């Protein structure tokens, strides 16, 4: 197990390397001028040139790259060109809303999607199945922000049940936290629910056709036990996998959801940084998200071993 983890971490290094190189090149070979953004509306060419020089943007690309890699290896993500704040500080400030949103959304998705998928598979071809399947196709088909606006209009404005925007730390009390996180989390989970419900259903259909399910029924077990004790655990591996790959979807959704609900999270930070050509911040953030992606998938792979005793690393 330990050697497996070690191997996976080693394997992640080239992946992160690819990400780093790719992002760096993408940013530097394309036009964009952080100096112009810093300077604002009134600036003469001379002034811009001086600002560029003071940001170190005049150095050759290779020098910039190795400076950055050197910093990275010493654990330093650099400093924002625009706000002069260390990237780690920026990320630290924005981590909580995004983390809260993502975790609540994942929890919500699993709580809704897994039972829905199980029921759909159980009543394969029946009413519940059709309902779940059409619901999930629909979930894929409506843009996240449209869902967001609809939820705001309905629950926050018309019914006045929730605030329309904002974020409160969970440490400031569960009530204020919850009332602000419910709508964004639900908005974010729509695609995720669709994804997980479909996968759960498909995986359960696979498993329900297995011999050991017939064995379980032949033992006279109740359907509830058959479904949840015997089938679901066997169906869990692909479901977990889709949760892992769906994590990428979630990051995309986070960007939009944070904008609609005005959550000061990493998604908005990234978009802002891309628009402002704040290179160190973009690089740091994309490395971070890729790292999280790799880590989540490693965790999920490891969790297979807990779900399925046949899997040993």
């Amino acid at each position, binding site marked *: 197990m330990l050697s497996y983890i070690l191997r996976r971490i080693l394997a992640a290094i080239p992946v992160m390397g690819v990400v780093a190189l790719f992002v760096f090149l993408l940013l530097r070979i394309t036009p964009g001028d952080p100096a112009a953004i810093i300077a604002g509306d009134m600036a*003469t*060419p001379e002034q811009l040139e001086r600002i560029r020089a003071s940001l170190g943007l005049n150095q050759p690309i290779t020098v910039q790259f190795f400076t950055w890699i050197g910093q990275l290896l010493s654990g330093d993500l650099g400093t924002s060109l*625009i706000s002069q*704040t260390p990237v780690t500080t920026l990320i630290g*400030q924005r981590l909580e809303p995004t983390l809260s949103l993502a975790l609540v959304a994942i929890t919500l998705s699993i709580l809704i999607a897994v039972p829905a998928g199980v029921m759909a598979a159980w009543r394969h071809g029946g009413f519940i199945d059709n309902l779940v399947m059409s619901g999930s196709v629909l979930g894929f088909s409506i843009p996240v922000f449209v869902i967001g606006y609809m939820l705001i209009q309905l629950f926050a404005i018309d019914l006045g049940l929730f605030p*329309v*925007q904002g974020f409160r730390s969970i440490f400031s009390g569960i009530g204020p936290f919850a009332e602000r996180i419910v709508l964004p989390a639900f908005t974010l989970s729509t695609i995720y629910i669709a994804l997980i419900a479909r996968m759960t259903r498909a995986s359960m259909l696979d498993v329900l056709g297995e011999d050991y399910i017939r064995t379980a029924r032949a033992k006279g077990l109740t359907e509830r036990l058959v479904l949840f004790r015997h089938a679901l655990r066997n169906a869990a591996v692909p479901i977990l996998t889709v949760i892992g790959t769906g994590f990428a979807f979630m990051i995309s959704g986070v960007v939009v959801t944070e904008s609609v609900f*005005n959550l000061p999270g990493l998604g908005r*930070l990234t978009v802002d940084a891309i628009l402002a050509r704040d290179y160190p911040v973009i690089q740091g953030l994309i490395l971070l998200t890729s790292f999280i992606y790799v880590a989540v998938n490693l965790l999920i792979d490891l969790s297979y071993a807990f779900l399925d005793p046949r899997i040993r690393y």
Partner: protein
Amino acid sequence: MALFNASRSTLSGAIRAGAAAAALLMALQNGLAAAPKTITAVMHSGVRVLDPVITTAHITRNHGYMIYDTLLAIDEKFQPQPQMASWAVSDDGLTYTFTLRDGLKFHDGAPVTAEDCVASLKRWAQRDGGGQMMMGSVASLEATDAKTINLKLKEKFSLVLDLLAKPSAIPTFIMPKRIAETPADKAISEHIGSGPFKFVAAEYQPGVKVVYEKNTDYVPRSEPPSATSGGKVVKVDRVEWITMPDAQTTVNAINNGEIDYIEQAPWDLLPLVTSNKDLNVVTLNKLGQQTMGRMNWLYPPFDNPKIRRAALLALNQKDVLAALVGNPEYYKVCGSMYGCGTPLATDVGSKTLTGDGDVEGAKALLKEAGYDGTPVTLLQATDVTTLTAQPIVAAQLLRKAGFTVDMQPMDWQTLVGRRASQKPPAEGGWNLFFTNWVIPEVWNPVVNPMLNGRGKTGGWFGWPEDAKLDAMRAEFVKVATPEERKAIAARIQEHALEVVNYVPLGQYDVPGVWNKKLTGLLFSPVPVFWNAEIKD
């Protein structure tokens, strides 16, 4: 002037007497853990750059007004007024002596000295266009004692006070000397001013949230507040600026009582707030803003003055403003490059712009100039609501006159980077773009960044080389009387429109929206938070 405040006089009288008591009371309240009085404001953009000198971004300027004090300031009639310092001018008009008032203290406790002011002014002058011009005429600028600053001119320069008092784009914010000695092209890293609010570094989230708390040591002037001048009396404990990227969300939030103030509410969403009895919808910046288009003089087709002129003839303000603002209550056609409602306003040379344009004239001129169909690379900002309409309307009007238009959509930040490129349009350059100014940034030929003929090295984006313009500008700073100034300004405009330095496309107001429990907001060209009060 205080808004919605009936008892102005009692107020000013009570200020000083009450200051100490109020502070004491406040401390007591805080001790009793009462909620601090906080204004939650949504500004037009997030604060990302904290150095109000390196950037001309309005949000950073607004930030500057919170934590810094300015040497001079303007009143509601745009006249220079003493703020940190009062002044005296020698009879020959070549020596200015500024004397700092008592009680000025930086947030770190150090007193404000003349040295600090000189360092700050020097840094300001490196970055500010008007400042640069002024320094060309300055013989010396030095602190003669702790409270006195001496400015000596080599030659006549009549705009010294106007420049030191101007509210935008870079006002004369005073910082401690050690900070002001940072090179002007490097952002400062400490944010210590002597202004009415203190910056709360711990709660600063770039682009998301800035928090200011009352500077209890601040000694306001005794005059009533007027625009950026007068007594800056702070009546709340905290001001929080938060950024909302989505206008719809912002409007919903103020309707729901989640925020107190929107600096700039989008016109089209006003129907959603005007129906709410708890909200005020008022334009605080009465001068408003100017929208304009600028051509690149370096490359075809706009290297040809006739074609520039044809483009100007093709455009008209009404169509642009109607598409941009919609509601006529919030815009006015304005033929002045210096903005309407300003001392120098004139409509000379702008007849077609304020009228319906002259498509036929444009066509004729294009033909005469031998326009060969070279496409006009038009940069369009897609993410700033006050900038999306101009390119669309302009493209339509230019095409009608016979231009080929290649509209290139991009986000504003990309546009900002791209317009700085002096390469040909095909290689990442451009021909035409649009932007907006607050009127104090264009209201005279010295501060107006476009009216500058120094070409590829010293000019503003578009880089016109125009010796005649520069000569007239030099003349402008020397004359003393308002009448003379006005005359030269009119000549400059006539010339500038003839060669098409830029195309003023009209003036508009952006209303602010706030909850009625918030009172005392001031009419001012920049949003300020002193004098504002909030009820629970």
